[in-house]
């Protein structure tokens, strides 16, 4: 790489500059800075292992400069690469400072060269892979698969994908899980209704509704509230069904209920 260090900007041929500028039109077609660098490197027409990273850095910086002149919006990663290459360029041009920490310019350049060569290598490999004979295009599997005997043994299957999506479904549902009440301390209207249907048969005369509250529910305020509300709602429901009558002497007086005679229904 040493021999490239004395290259100055004007040593890049005019045709290379033109080529680099032509790329700008196509900026959207590149898959990021590395892809662009690889394309630029082709103008050097050498084996990637002998590539001049310094020249490449200049080409890239010229590209970015040109894009700026044309007021093209370059994605941030292109600008990050430009900054990095400018840094690399200075490291390659200046004599190494022995006090300086970190990798040398040559090491950084070598790694970039490696990255380019590796990307090119993978592209070649991808091309070779896709050029292979392919199943269903160049060679074929059996057209008639036989299932002569109908032994109906059912087996169940699932894919890893099913499994993971099933799990994801449960876990993401957790995130949105609605508020669930603590059932232990809640009496539902259905429960109260069920209870009252049994008890009401024995109640001939007006009775305070509070006497219908189940035992053991009056100690805890939360449970008392819940059961009172449920029992009251159940009473209304039973009154609606014509099973009982309700009365209340005055505001805040006890609410009383009694069974309605069957003939009144």
């Amino acid at each position, binding site marked *: 790489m040493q021999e490239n260090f004395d290259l100055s900007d004007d040593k890049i041929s005019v045709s290379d500059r033109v080529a680099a500028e032509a790329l700008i039109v196509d900026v959207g077609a590149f898959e990021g800075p590395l892809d662009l660098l690889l394309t630029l490197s082709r103008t050097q027409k050498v084996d990637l292992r002998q590539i001049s990273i310094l020249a490449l850095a200049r080409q890239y910086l010229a590209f970015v400069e040109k894009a700026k002149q044309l007021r093209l919006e370059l994605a941030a990663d292109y600008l990050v690469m430009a900054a990095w290459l400018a840094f690399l360029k200075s490291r390659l041009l200046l004599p190494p400072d022995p006090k300086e920490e970190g990798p040398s310019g040559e090491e950084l350049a070598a790694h970039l060269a490696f990255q380019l060569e590796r990307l090119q290598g993978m592209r070649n490999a991808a091309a070779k892979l896709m050029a292979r004979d392919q199943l269903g295009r160049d060679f074929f599997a059996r057209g008639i698969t036989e*299932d002569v*005997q109908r032994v109906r043994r059912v087996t169940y299957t699932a894919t890893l994908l099913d499994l993971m999506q099933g799990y994801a*479904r449960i876990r993401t549902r957790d*995130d949105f899980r609605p508020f669930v009440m603590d059932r232990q301390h809640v009496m539902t209207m259905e429960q109260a209704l069920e209870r009252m249907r049994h008890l009401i048969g024995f109640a001939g005369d007006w009775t305070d509704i509070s006497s219908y509250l189940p035992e053991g529910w009056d100690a805890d305020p939360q449970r008392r509230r819940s059961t009172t509300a449920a029992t009251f709602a159940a009473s209304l429901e039973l009154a609606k069904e014509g099973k009982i009558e309700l009365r209340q002497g005055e505001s805040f007086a006890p609410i009383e209920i009694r069974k309605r005679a069957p003939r009144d229904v």
Partner: protein
Amino acid sequence: MSKPENDSLFEAPPIGEQERMVEAILFASADPVSVQDLIGRMPHGCDPAEAIAYLRKRYEGRGVNLVKIDNAWAIRTAPDLGFLMQKESVETRKLSRAAIETLAIIAYHQPVTRADIEEIRGVSVSRGTLDQLIELEWIRFGRRRMTPGRPVTFVVTATFLDHFGLESARDLPGLKDLRAAGLLENRPPPGVVDVPDEEDNADGNDDQTELFEE
């Protein structure tokens, strides 16, 4: 000598080559193929009828034979070997959603009790679901948990790992991986911690203890 533009420029391929062609076509076709069809598909000048005669002879007494169905030809299993085809007719069905979710919970949280599964799924787990998974040999009973009632736990089996191409249950991808691969659409609401990737460590320790007791 003027060259005609079409295929007849070339001689018909040798009969051995024609035999190969017929063999490949009959093998790959989903339906029996008529001689007429073969003529249409093979290079100009071929005589599939002759090739079939050779090929039929070649397959005599083999595991598969050339058979004529109506006016068309097909390669079929030799009648005496039909008994080997039983496995082909095993019917595979997709596991139900309930079973998949139950299996997933066991895989990600093992060892788990039935109550754990119900807690996570938010619905009760039917006996049939667990039975089915046990029958598939994807889950098995782990050791009992040292809590009141000593409930039995479930863990996944080597068969399970094998079926799903996993070397260990640790290789199960987490939610983040699923999302990264684009396999998971719904995102949690902002501010909600991504769930199973880093499950709380306290639980991990408990589970681990139980695992080692096995």
